[in-house]
């Protein structure tokens, strides 16, 4: 029996059945199938929820190992585990809307996230510096468009030169939106073709097997 579960064909069949359970009710009005599809989505959510428990176990095991062996950065791991359980206990005892639980959210998570997000601004500037060099007609066009959009985005420029906002909106609503739509279309088409390759067993890395690559 265990051999059957390990078979590549069985996995592909399972993937195909799951695919059909989502695909068919989306396009066809068959209420019982829709119900089955919803139940399957619920099963996936439950599996995901269990992954959090797995996360807790895995993180604790890994951190305790590092602390026990005094490996590089062990104090951070000790700090992580202490905070992890403290937040979990506070959340379970007082609820996720309690001021004690929110304290951890506002005092630790939000500032850390905000710091990293603000660092990103500098990274964007340095990445932009490398790209924005007028080495070709296309790059020159990119610089001009970039400058117009940036100026249009800044409130000061809009106050002194109102037409800039119109130009910015035109570029964003037409060229940028068209590019984004094309990106979405190509992505969807690529995803369908990838799906066909997986279902026909032509791309089995996705299901954990070493395929033809």
């Amino acid at each position, binding site marked *: 029996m265990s051999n059957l579960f390990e078979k590549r064909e069985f996995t592909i069949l399972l993937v195909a059945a799951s695919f059909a359970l989502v695909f068919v009710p989306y396009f066809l009005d068959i209420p019982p199938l829709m119900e089955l599809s919803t139940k399957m989505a619920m099963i996936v959510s439950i599996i*995901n929820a269990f992954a959090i428990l797995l996360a807790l176990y*895995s993180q604790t095991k890994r951190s305790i190992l590092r602390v026990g062996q005094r490996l590089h950065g062990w104090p951070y791991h000790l700090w992580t585990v202490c905070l992890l359980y403290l937040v979990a206990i506070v959340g379970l005892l007082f609820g996720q809307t309690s001021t004690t639980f929110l304290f951890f959210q506002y005092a630790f998570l939000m500032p850390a996230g905000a710091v990293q997000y603000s660092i990103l601004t500098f*990274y964007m500037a340095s990445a932009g510096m*490398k790209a924005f060099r007028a080495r070709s007609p296309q790059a020159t066009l990119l610089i001009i468009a970039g400058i117009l959009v940036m100026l249009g985005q800044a409130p000061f420029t809009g106050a002194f030169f109102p037409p800039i906002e119109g130009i910015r909106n035109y570029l964003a609503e037409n060229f940028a939106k068209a590019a*984004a739509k094309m990106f979405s*279309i190509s992505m969807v088409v690529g995803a*369908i*073709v990838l799906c066909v390759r997986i279902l026909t067993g032509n791309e089995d890395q996705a299901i954990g097997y070493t395929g033809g*690559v």
Partner: protein
Amino acid sequence: MTLLTIPLIAEGKILGLIIVVAVFLITIYYLTSKKEIPIRRVAGLDAIEEAVGRSTEMGKPHFATIGVATFNHWTLAAIAMLEFQARICARTETRLIVPCGGSTSAFITRPVALDVVKNAYIAEGKEFDEIDMPFLAGGKGWAFGAGAVAMIQKLKPGGLVLTGQYGSVALHIAEQASQQGVMTIASGSYMGNVAALACASDYTMIGEEVLAAGAYLTREPAKLASIRTQDLLKFTAIATTLIGILITLAGSDFIIQLLGT
């Protein structure tokens, strides 16, 4: 209002169903016909081998990622690319490091990625050390980003293939890698991300180029031919857009109704 309704088929989804079925049939035709169809080169995918080779020559580790999302098309494509890199790394005895994490979903995707890498190593007669696929953080993408950046700064890899689905943290990793002199190949999962990554990376893969990776890297004629379906559909989309513009300018809403069918 739609042009057509068919019993049993959900309203407004007829055209969608026709397109999906057509894509399925055309792709299966290409996969079974095994015709040699010329496919345009994808610079980003071609450069993956170069990035691993660079790491080998420099005697440094090679970094690869699978993203922070659950099992979606980006993650599946990233795993296909990971296998390709794992094989070359095993063959050339280059240390492969795959930082994972950034979401609770990573607890589901990581074991699959680990299995794929281990199998790839076994196929090359080598063994992969699990410690080289560290789980850096749970629910927070930023925490994962900080961990990945720290590893890049410390280990200074020769190459980085940043694939899978990421948010803004992708730029964080790519730009830091670039500043460390790492050859970076990245793929963006949304337009804003692609634009930022194009500035920070040496090579950027756009849209369906990433999703074609599994087939492209095998160089097998049948799988390569399946990529042709993507091109066919893209041309159809472009043609529909152009015809739609003309018809709408002429004052008809036929194309809007047709697409809503």
